[in-house]
């Protein structure tokens, strides 16, 4: 076993254990952890199963198979970051709506108070 393979296995296992632990402690919601879990598992499988890594590397024209691990990790990261951008957009939209509703509710509350004290 090459040193690079040992390193790759330890690294993917680290991500997997870390993500699972964060979910277990309630610090990471499952819906946001799915992509992390998927990337950790795929990287782990490719690190342990050298034959599969070599076959895919040959098929996509990567001369040094361990470099394929970087490509796969990079693609997963792109996906995760894009996923975050979508989530941020949705959260900021919801935040805007909430803030507007709060401002309107405060106004209504004041108007009702004014009417009440007028009686």
């Amino acid at each position, binding site marked *: 076993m090459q040193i690079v393979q040992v390193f790759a296995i330890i690294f993917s296992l680290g991500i997997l254990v870390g993500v699972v632990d964060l979910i277990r402690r309630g610090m990471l919601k499952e819906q946001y952890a799915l992509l992390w879990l998927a990337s950790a598992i795929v990287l782990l499988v490719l690190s342990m199963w050298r034959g599969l890594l070599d076959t895919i590397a040959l098929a996509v024209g990567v001369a040094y198979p361990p470099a394929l691990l970087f490509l796969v990790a990079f693609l997963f990261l792109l996906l995760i970051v894009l996923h975050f951008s979508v989530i941020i957009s949705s959260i900021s939209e919801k935040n*805007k709506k909430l*803030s*507007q*509703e*709060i*401002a*309107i509710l*405060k*106004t209504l509350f*004041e*108007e009702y108070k004014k009417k009440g004290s007028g009686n």
Partner: protein
Amino acid sequence: MNRILVITPAYNEAESIEDVISAVKKELPGADILVINDGSADATSQLARGLGVMVADLPYNMGIGAAMQAGYRYAAMHGYDIAVQVDADGQHPPDQINNLVAPLMEQKADMVIGSRFLGEVKYYPSFARHLGMKIFAFVVSVMTGRKITDTTSGFRAANKGVIRFFADNYPEDYPEVEAIVLLRKAGFNIIETPVRMEARAGGVSSITPLRSLYYMVKVLLSVFVDMLKKVER
């Protein structure tokens, strides 16, 4: 009788807000006025409250688009028939509001834009600004199939249908141009009417020379993206 809401978004407009509100009250005694205080650091909110109009304080500075949308949300919630956008900086003379509202009363349009370039023109912007405005007018007119001369005018009146649409769909950042495109996509009828505008009474324009290039690019880009968006009425 049509219920009218005048929406006045204000960000640090303490210098001019009282004059604007007083003038609107005088011109439209029957209308409700809602000032949207967009996180002002000055006395804008207190001064407006002092005149007895409704004030909605946004919890932080959200930008003109979100502020205006808050006003439309309020109008939609309370079933107003007509909403009028009037800037807090004194650019929009309240004696012109009836020109905007009249076509809505006669059901000639869903939204009326007050244009500085129609009728007796007394507005002479700098060359660069004029060029930018011409480009917007051209792009919007071609894209929407409706000739619009003053796309960046924020002096507007909207009927109930548009109020409901804007409550859920209002662009952010520099919303005036985009709002036209979105409305046309949703099938609303927009017309322009000549209005007179004043030089701003107080405060500083949000569009500094440095920002104007960003403004151009951002608005044009957003307008093209809007054409690709799914718009539901």
